[in-house]
């Protein structure tokens, strides 16, 4: 067998697109699985664009929500949350998420984080549910059954062991957005560092959008295919956009931005504050480059760059 006629990045089908094109793949009412974990690898630029495009009635899901979810809720795009928890780590809590919860403006389908991961896993495997023993006896389960998600959880006696079990239903998000370090034009995407539930969420979803810090030749991917978390054939769109998770961190690329996270937390304390933030940092700049300019430009970005050895 002679060499395969080198599939250049074009032959196998480039999925490169603009942020605006990618955000347009999320429709009003869609269920969007998010990428971040607290203040790491959040889909910030992507969320900005959803806000600019005025998407509505979204359902968001993640094991642990981060700033991307807080922005989308703060901007009024969200009607339901499926999650286990959320925070901005030491910077503070997700104030827009918590406020919406307190005021009842979102339905909060609130699980143990593993239950969310299991719902993605079932979706990814094409099985209808996963059995588990978390949430037994808890108010998490009681509230899901009675209020927020009676169709998505069941209790059952295990037919093998006789033990009590919780069954959590498979979840198939309409779209998963995954923020990664490296991708090729076909969509083969590699994540460095811990992957939390990104693999299962992406493989459960109907459509996957990869937002990559760096575009690499498919040769780079194929030199170490062990790191490919999402295969290109699962991906509908690839957006290459440096610093697209700012002010959250991307391991081996850049650190979180303390200053900006503190500023955000101060603003998000009130509804008025968050409206001001959205105006100042999302709508007025109008695109990602202008946003980066506004948060401190080249000097700030240079300061955030990760150390090669430490990775942060």
């Amino acid at each position, binding site marked *: *067998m*002679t*060499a*395969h*006629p080198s*599939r250049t990045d074009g*032959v*196998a*089908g480039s999925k490169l697109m603009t942020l605006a094109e990618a955000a347009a793949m999320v429709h009003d009412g869609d269920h969007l699985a998010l990428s971040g974990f607290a203040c790491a690898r959040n889909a910030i630029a992507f969320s900005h664009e959803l806000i600019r495009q005025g998407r509505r009635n979204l359902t968001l899901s993640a094991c642990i929500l981060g700033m991307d979810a807080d922005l989308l809720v703060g901007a009024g795009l969200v009607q339901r949350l499926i999650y286990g928890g959320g925070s901005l780590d030491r910077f503070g809590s997700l104030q827009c998420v918590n406020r919406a919860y307190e005021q009842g403006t979102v339905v909060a389908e609130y699980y143990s984080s593993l239950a969310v991961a299991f719902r993605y896993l079932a979706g*990814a*495997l*094409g*099985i209808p549910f996963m059995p588990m023993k978390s949430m037994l006896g808890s108010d998490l389960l009681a509230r899901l059954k009675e209020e927020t998600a009676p169709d998505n959880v069941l209790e059952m006696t295990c037919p093998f062991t006789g033990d009590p079990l919780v069954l959590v239903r498979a979840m198939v998000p309409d779209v998963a957005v995954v923020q990664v370090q490296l991708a090729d034009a*076909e969509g*083969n995407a590699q994540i460095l560092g811990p992957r939390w539930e990104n693999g299962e969420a992406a*493989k459960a979803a109907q459509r996957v959008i990869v937002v990559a810090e760096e575009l690499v030749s*498919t040769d780079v*991917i*194929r030199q170490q*295919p*062990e790191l*490919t978390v999402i*295969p*290109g*054939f699962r991906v509908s769109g690839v957006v290459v956009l440096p610093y697209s998770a700012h002010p959250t961190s991307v391991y081996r690329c850049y650190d979180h931005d303390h200053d900006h996270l503190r500023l955000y937390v101060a603003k998000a304390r009130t509804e008025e504050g968050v409206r001001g933030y959205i105006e100042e940092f999302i709508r007025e700049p109008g695109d990602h480059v202008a946003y980066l300019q506004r948060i401190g430009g080249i000097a700030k970005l240079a300061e955030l760059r990760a150390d090669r050895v430490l990775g942060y």
Partner: protein
Amino acid sequence: MRAQTEAPEFTTSELMVVVGARELKDGQLVFAGLGIPQIAVALAQRTHAPRLIVLNEIGLVDPHQIELGVGNADPRHWYRAAVFSSFLDIVGMVGHRGLVDVGFLGALEIDEFGNNNSSEVQRDDGGIRRFGGGGGANDIASHAKSTIMIIRHEARKLVERLVHNTSPGFLTGGDARRRAGLPGRGPSRVITDKALFTFDTTVGRIKLLSIHPGITHEDVRVSTGFPLEIPPGVPETGPPTQEEVRLIREELDPTRMYTSAI
């Protein structure tokens, strides 16, 4: 086998490769093991389906081999893959998830409903002769959108009753497959060394599509162990083109590992 007008000389296994390749569409996700399926997929990628993606249960996506290996487990088969992962990732999160477009399946026996035995056959002395086992074949047959089976055309292989239904086709026909809860759409083609079959999905039964060049109706009849209607006007399987034969011989299987037969 004699060449047809304007067509080159070709072996039966080359014809089977070409018939397999023609069933594949660009952009499809395909499970293909070693041998004729692997060459068929490579041929499709070099001709009309450059974006076809091959999966392997061992935990591979889209390898670009430059040498033929001895099997799925041979690293020659993994060269320049885009993903190295796991059984669960490929057979679970792609296969069981229902994303596979075409799965190639070998078989020891098939019946008229496309049920497939890859486990064991009856010995002449009444005992069992055991083969390797289906591995992921049942998973592919249960979940793929379509399956293509490859089998030698003999009356003891195309049988009325299987020794072991390893990988269900249409079970007892009709809507038995759907009622059993199998998500995949079932078998779509059977490629033998004598003919090409499809399935009538409303009755869940095999149907002759074409007979290979040089093979007589009588030959097909006596080599088929279940009752088979051979319509008088059944077409001849289209022969390979010169370019297809050249690709197979010069690029895809230059050592004639899989395509020298007959």
